[in-house]
């Protein structure tokens, strides 16, 4: 790990295509040293980007949308049985980052990803990487609940059926029931599994999407603001659910709610204008941030 930290120091961004707005933004000094400045030429992340038992290791990740650079030299590990919260102002690249992890950015024609992203040591951008398999291993829950316009049962059963996870109807029923139970939705929908999934309330839909994701038994779950459209009760449901899921999954969650990040995550990563400013244990980030920008953000002095 130590060795890695030293290479991190040398991480450079030599992209000349960064638009001026990103380059010239005044970024204040790191508090701890008071000397190092973060600019587009030289940028280091405050805190410890590594995890002891990494599932994902991201090194030097750069993402461009056409000419525009959305992520600059991001380094981050996501460990097993841990929840990493990704916070930061709007447009700073959180969604872009997690969409790199299951290669959803492939669907955007203009998007280009460079750097190294490894899932259990395997480069997911390698030529021989099967995207379909990757996405089966790395599930994703979106900001807006997006159930299929099919029945509740079919929503959950779709993934297992696709991947042949069950050999008969009884097994499939079992998977559906188990996933809905773990998503905390079973009791509400057990009598109407044939009703359309789109007929559920927003919070129920989001839990249905979570059930759909865990039905294929992924290793990692990516959540992009899963609670942004939900009321506090539904949010609490999902947060409880995330707590339970930590037992079996690595989770990366994007959130705009500081409280939520504090409640559900073990580590927190703060992004700013495409850069990963600080990563550390969640309570450290919120109580004693290492960087001025992080401090401004978590104390609410920043948008």
């Amino acid at each position, binding site marked *: 790990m130590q060795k890695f930290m030293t290479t991190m120091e040398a991480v450079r961004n030599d992209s000349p295509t960064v638009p001026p707005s990103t380059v010239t933004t005044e970024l204040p000094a790191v508090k701890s040293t008071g000397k190092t400045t973060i600019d587009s030429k030289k940028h280091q992340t405050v805190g410890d980007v590594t995890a002891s038992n990494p599932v994902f290791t991201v090194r030097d990740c750069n993402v461009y949308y056409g000419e525009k650079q959305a992520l600059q030299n991001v380094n981050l590990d996501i460990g097993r049985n841990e929840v990493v919260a990704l916070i930061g102002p709007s447009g700073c690249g959180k969604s872009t980052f997690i969409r790199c992890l299951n290669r959803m950015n492939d669907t955007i024609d203009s998007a280009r990803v460079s750097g190294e992203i490894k899932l259990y040591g395997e480069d997911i951008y390698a030529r021989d990487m099967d995207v379909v398999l990757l996405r089966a291993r790395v599930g*994703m829950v979106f900001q807006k609940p997006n159930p299929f316009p099919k029945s509740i049962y079919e929503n959950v059963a779709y993934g297992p059926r696709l991947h042949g996870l069950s050999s008969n109807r009884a097994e499939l029923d079992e998977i559906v029931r188990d996933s809905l139970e773990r998503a905390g939705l079973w009791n509400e929908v057990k009598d109407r599994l044939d009703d359309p999934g789109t007929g559920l309330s927003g919070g129920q839909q989001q839990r249905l999407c979570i059930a759909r994701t865990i039905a*294929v038994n992924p290793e990692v779950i990516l959540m992009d603001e899963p609670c942004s459209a939900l009321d506090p009760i539904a949010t609490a449901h999902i947060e409880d659910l995330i707590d339970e899921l930590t037992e079996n999954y690595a989770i990366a969650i994007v959130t705009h709610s500081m409280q939520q990040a504090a409640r559900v995550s073990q580590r927190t990563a703060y992004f700013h204008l495409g850069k990963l400013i600080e990563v550390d244990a969640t309570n450290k980030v919120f109580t004693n941030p290492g960087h001025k920008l992080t401090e401004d953000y978590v104390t609410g002095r920043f948008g």
Partner: protein
Amino acid sequence: MGNLSQSRAQTLEKVRASLALRYRKERRFRFYGAASVVFGLLLVILLFGSIFGNGYTAFWQTQMQLDIYFDPQIIDPDNTGDPKIIGRANFAKLARHSLAELFPEVSGRRDRRSLNALLSSGAGFQLRKMILNDPELIGETLRLWLPADDEVDMLVKGYVDRTLPQGSRRLKDRQIEWIDELAAQGRIERQFNTAFFTSGDSREPELAGIGSAAKGSLFMLLITLSLSFPLGVAVAVYLEEFAPKNRWSNIIEVNINNLAAVPSIVYGLLGLAVFINFFGLPRSAPLVGGLVLTLMTLPTIIIAARASIKSVPPSVREAALSIGASRMQTIFHHVVPLAMPGMLTGAIIGMARALGESAPLLMIGMIAFIVEMPSTPMDPATALPVQVYLWADSPERAFAERTSAAIIVLLVFLLVMNGAAIWLRKKFERRW
């Protein structure tokens, strides 16, 4: 403070004034809208009213009741029992004899001939068919309903003005007397005109039907639908989902849009040159018509299908991809089913246009006079709109009502298709 409330009052005044203006504008706009809808409806009612008013009588046909003696001397004098010989017999004579028996006072060649003119030439065909079906009937006497001539039909339906001088009518005074006498005996009756739906074209209006035209249209529609819908959907899916976005796909897109605007007769010329002259397919065949109409409707279907694929929300694609569906699976499990209602609507609109199309069919010879029913798409046939055109061109008064009746049938076809479109859309539509 006073200043503020004053300016507030002013603002309120201004808003009120502008509101009144806005409401007035809105009311005017609504009125224009309602007026144009009423105007459009009136035109539709006028059109339908005139077509229906002219055409509905064609669904009934005047028949004449005669006691027919199936005289073996006429049908099969040598008692051979051979269908070939029986088929050649003069069956019209049987009907003429029976008519002559009803009016024994009529004598002389000219009078006899004008009496016989009351019968349709179809009467003989009908008797012939009966005997060929059941030769046992030879020698028996049966009371039968036989078709009357179209002039009798017109008189019975009230289209002939009896007060006109004899010279400017087709039916002479004596003939009208005979008809009245037959009617008084209850031997003249209007019956439902099944022949109109089952038979092909004929020079005699009372025998002419839309059967062959309808069947030709049906064959063409089936061919067009089964070719253009899968092809159009496949092209749309490929262009939307798989084709690289470059200059070539742009050129293709522009050209598809252009093709949708090409006059239909050009497709007829194309069909003539390619399918008939080059590939040697038969003229006047629904197969060629169907191929031509396929070419014509393809651009419409492609454009509609692409639009409906585009309108599938990206969140559904993302959902499918994110749980590990391949691109193909995403498209065929989610995108295409969701786009189906739009695709079907486009297809039905294209089919409706194809059904009403006559110009390209004229180019490939589907305007021929077709008496026989086509039994395969390779047989010569005509189409409903072409049949309408042919009848509209005929001088007999009786064809006028048949023209309208054929239009009614065409409209019913269209209504059924649109109904099917709505039903399919409802069936495939899913709530979000």
